[in-house]
């Protein structure tokens, strides 16, 4: 009995510690966003604030074209999500279920693209896009991510776990290939799809590098680029303002995670399900 209780306490302590490690940066970010500059750079730091400086949010909001950048972020992230939805699902289905010439080679090449860092290819892509006159356009931010090797790989794994008989039953039920994909495969793969959609959305939402190098003005720049520009102030870095911007940047992502966490966990544990 005592052993069991001890085990429970240990578990609680370990869990709390792990949770603390992950929550701490968020707490620190939120805390700093409510401090004054003096408080923000004070050593040793305070772990709470007595007078929260909500004004920091307004300052951050006004320092950059926040609303237009938010709009850009939404357009780019949503655009990428939709493009990936259209390209990833049929590709994953084909790789999982059809036999065709060169399938393994194509799949291998596709996986290999995951190993190429964007820093390596941004220059040729930039030159290509500038030739096409696409610099400072939404297309330049969306097109490089219109498909996802990782997504195809993940979804292919899920599709491959669906028993063959289901597809055969559907074929005997007069279902077209599209209908099989839409009505049978996708609902079964739902947790994986939700996870992928979320991941691609978050990756796009948080991406700083690509929107930064492919734009020359604020027309289509996204929020991360804007928030980063808060660092560049003549009077030194106003950490509290940067942090306020960051809170506004990650809030939508956190909310999305909160609502989708069940599906995400399912997406990663699907292997064990029958």
């Amino acid at each position, binding site marked *: 009995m005592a052993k069991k209780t001890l085990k429970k306490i240990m578990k609680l302590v370990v869990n709390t510690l792990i949770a603390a490690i992950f929550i701490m940066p968020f707490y620190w970010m939120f805390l700093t966003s409510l401090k004054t500059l003096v408080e923000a750079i004070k050593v040793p730091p305070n772990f709470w604030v007595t007078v929260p400086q909500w004004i920091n949010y307004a300052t951050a909001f006004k320092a950059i074209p926040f609303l237009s950048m938010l709009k850009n972020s939404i357009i780019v992230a949503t655009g990428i999500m939709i493009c990936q939805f259209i390209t990833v699902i049929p590709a994953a289905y084909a790789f999982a279920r059809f036999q065709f010439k060169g399938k393994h080679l194509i799949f291998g090449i596709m996986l290999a693209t995951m190993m190429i860092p964007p820093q390596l290819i941004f220059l040729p892509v930039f030159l290509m896009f500038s030739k096409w006159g696409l610099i400072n356009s939404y297309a330049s931010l969306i097109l490089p991510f219109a498909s996802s090797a990782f997504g195809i790989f993940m979804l292919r794994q899920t599709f491959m776990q669906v028993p063959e008989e*289901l597809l055969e039953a559907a074929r*005997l039920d*007069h279902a077209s290939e599209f*209908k099989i994909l839409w009505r049978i495969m996708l609902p079964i793969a739902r947790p994986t799809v939700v996870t992928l959609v979320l991941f691609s959305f978050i990756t796009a939402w948080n991406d700083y590098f690509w929107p930064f190098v492919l734009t020359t003005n604020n027309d289509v720049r996204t929020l991360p680029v804007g928030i980063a520009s808060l660092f560049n102030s003549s009077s030194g870095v106003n950490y509290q303002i940067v942090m306020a911007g960051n809170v506004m940047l990650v809030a939508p992502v956190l909310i999305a995670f909160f609502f989708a966490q069940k599906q995400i966990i399912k997406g990663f544990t699907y292997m064990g399900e029958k």
Partner: protein
Amino acid sequence: MNKIELVNIAKAYEKGTPVIEHLNLNIKEGSFTVLVGPSGCGKSTILRIIAGLEKETSGDVLIEGKNVSDIAPGDRQIAMVFQNYALYPTMTVRENIEFGLKNIKMPKAERQAKIAEISKLVDLEPYLSRKPHQLSGGQRQRVALARAIVKNPSVFLMDEPLSNLDAKLRSQIRTDLIELYRKLKTTFVYVTHDQVEAMSMATDIILLDKGKIQHRGSPADIYENPSNVFTARFIGSPPMNILSVEAIDLEDRMDKESDLIGKEPISISSIGPHHARYVGFRPEHSRIAKRCPEMNDLSINELFLEGIVQSREMLGDHVLYKVKTKYGEVYVKSFQLNMVDYGACHVVLNPKDLMFFDGNQNRIETDEERCYT
């Protein structure tokens, strides 16, 4: 009239020996045909070729006289029940049944009428809005059946549909299937490895081994007149006892007081055809007796085999003995429930129950047996 004809069908997978070679098979309209055989005999492959889920390497498949080799599975007027039911897991029972009807664009009112009718037939009415994972094995089985019936196919194909159920449910669904067959009056093609399912439901049994038809006939025929050793051993529980005639003859020559004798010693080869190599008898066509007192009870022509009781199982309506004889182990099914003790015993046989097989393990029909059947 033949509903389904397979003409010279061969099937081989990439790399590997062919599963089926030169198979000719016809299935009669309105029959309940069971394809039965050990695993790997090609029975499921045949079913899948009929369904169009598997492409034959060569040969023709005819349904109602029409070559369907190039017709898609969905257009063959067939419905199939899979071993694991293959229910669509994300759809409710109703949607599962409805899916095929929606795909052929049946009007909604008609669909609903059909579903109501079918769900009543298979007792699924209270479960229509449930998902498959909320159902028991037997209920899932019924959904799979309903999904097949609702399409009103001209042939039902069933691939071991009972093998995922427990024994009690299996026998219940067996009777349900027989009733269903009588109600629907369509052609059933049923694949199983279980000879009990084959015997109990079929009007026509096709016994397969290694891609070849070993025996084809009605359940009574296949039981009473197995055409070879394989059939004799496959059908019946426990299977037929098969002994090598040569071994008996050999023993006989060495020891004139042979075990397989009546009141007068007779050699097995003297009652069987001269080219017989194997002799068989069914466990239920033999008796077991303790040596001395019952010896006098033997009727004139009966034979007996000396042996030792190795094990005995009381199975309610009968007792099953495993008896070790000089020529091998034999099973005896006795309907006398007072059990014979372990130790020496005699297996008593009537010569007319013996079946003889030649060197190729094919049956040798004797006049006596023809009278018998």
